[in-house]
């Protein structure tokens, strides 16, 4: 149960505006794909993709904090939800992507021709 029974519709609409603006920025970037971002990379991923992923996490933060109202919960509940997710997702992404890239290298350098 939430403990503040005051209406916070104003905050809800603000968050909605924010999520909309971020989505519009993402779509515009996705359509135009500026060369400066698309053709330069950082840590083996192009800058455009970094921007997309960071904006996505930014949106996710607002959905979880404002809409799911985690900001009003006790910090023990907040951490028991967020920490396992952050840790496990980073971990699985790390091992899966490294492994995928390794297999890509195996295919590329192998003597077996697979793309013909």
């Amino acid at each position, binding site marked *: *149960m*939430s*403990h*503040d*029974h005051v*209406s*916070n*519709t104003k905050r*809800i*609409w603000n968050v*909605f505006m924010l*999520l*909309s603006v971020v*989505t*519009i920025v*993402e*779509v515009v970037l*996705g*359509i135009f794909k500026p060369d400066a971002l*698309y*053709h330069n990379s950082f840590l083996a991923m192009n800058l455009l*993709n970094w921007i*997309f*992923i960071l904006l*996505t996490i930014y*949106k*996710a933060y607002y*959905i*979880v904090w*404002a*809409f*799911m*109202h985690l900001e009003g*919960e*006790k910090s*023990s*509940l907040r951490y*028991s*939800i967020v920490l*396992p*997710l952050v840790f*496990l*997702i980073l971990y*699985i*992404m790390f091992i*899966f*992507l490294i*492994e*995928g*890239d390794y*297999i*890509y290298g195996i*295919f*590329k350098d192998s003597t077996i*021709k*697979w*793309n*013909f």
Partner: protein
Amino acid sequence: MGATVTTAKSEGKTWGGGNEPMNASYGKLMMWFFIVSDALTFSGFLAAYGFSRFKFIETWPLPDEVFNHFPFMHGVNAPMYYVALMTFILIFSSVTMVLAVDAGHQMKKSKVALYMFLTIIGGLIFVGSQAWEWKNFIKGEYGAVETQGGSLLQFVDNTGKRVKLSDFAVNLPEDRVQDTRDKGIWFSSEGSLPTYSVAEVQAGFAANPNLLIRTEVIYHPSDATKADKTLHPTLNSKPKHKTVLTREASEAMLKNAHYVVEGANLVRNEYGSKLFADFFFFITGFHGFHVFSGVVINIIIFFNVLLGTYEKRKNYEMVEKVGLYWHFVDLVWVFVFTFFYLV
């Protein structure tokens, strides 16, 4: 170790139930546990998608060439617009949901009912949009040809524009009838045949000298690709697009063709890597199923609101719990949107 220090007075109460150490009721806590495990399931799916994409990083389809349809705009290249619209619909239904929760805190029954109703409508529109998206994906637009080696060939004209199979394939006087159980041996049948046979596509390609073949490989300018004589000299100028072959190389490549691919199914698809369609169906399908079940749960709660169940209970926490689930569905979509359509 403050929790283990108990006085005689509070000992009975600590283990006797009714304690809410996290200040959340049992039901809400369980909803959060479910959301955490479901979030891990979706991360597993998206990680698997990332794995396969990294494995085939040089041949993966480019999303803005696949999802470029918009209702009532045939033949218009509209990448992203439709999914952006779907995203807005889902975010907006999340907003109406949180407004319903907010109205519930103030015990305003009619307002809760109205916002729940709008949320349900938003969810239904989203599921419908997804169905339309699937229809386009399954039907396909241009068609392609699969080689003996299992890679995919698409067709472009000499300006690099995509060409549909129906625009050039000829009609040969051949009669290949689909094998069904009632026509041949009772236990043998096959899937529906493509509109054109390989021979018809090859004959049509030979008759149109301005056609070229585009392979799955994403072009990156390098000394090796510049020295490669099979690559088209002018059409491969910009990096990060699918490689176009010269006419001679295209003809040689098309001799390897063994199957005509139209649209998408779980075996092959006309967009490129076979795993692409599998992941698309599986992940958006699983998400769509979540939206659908969310709508069903919302409808149940909506009727409970109308019947005054929560009014009698003097609290609308049930609306808050389904709200958590609904926001979670929105949250997952934000990630699916990024990893399938943007990145």
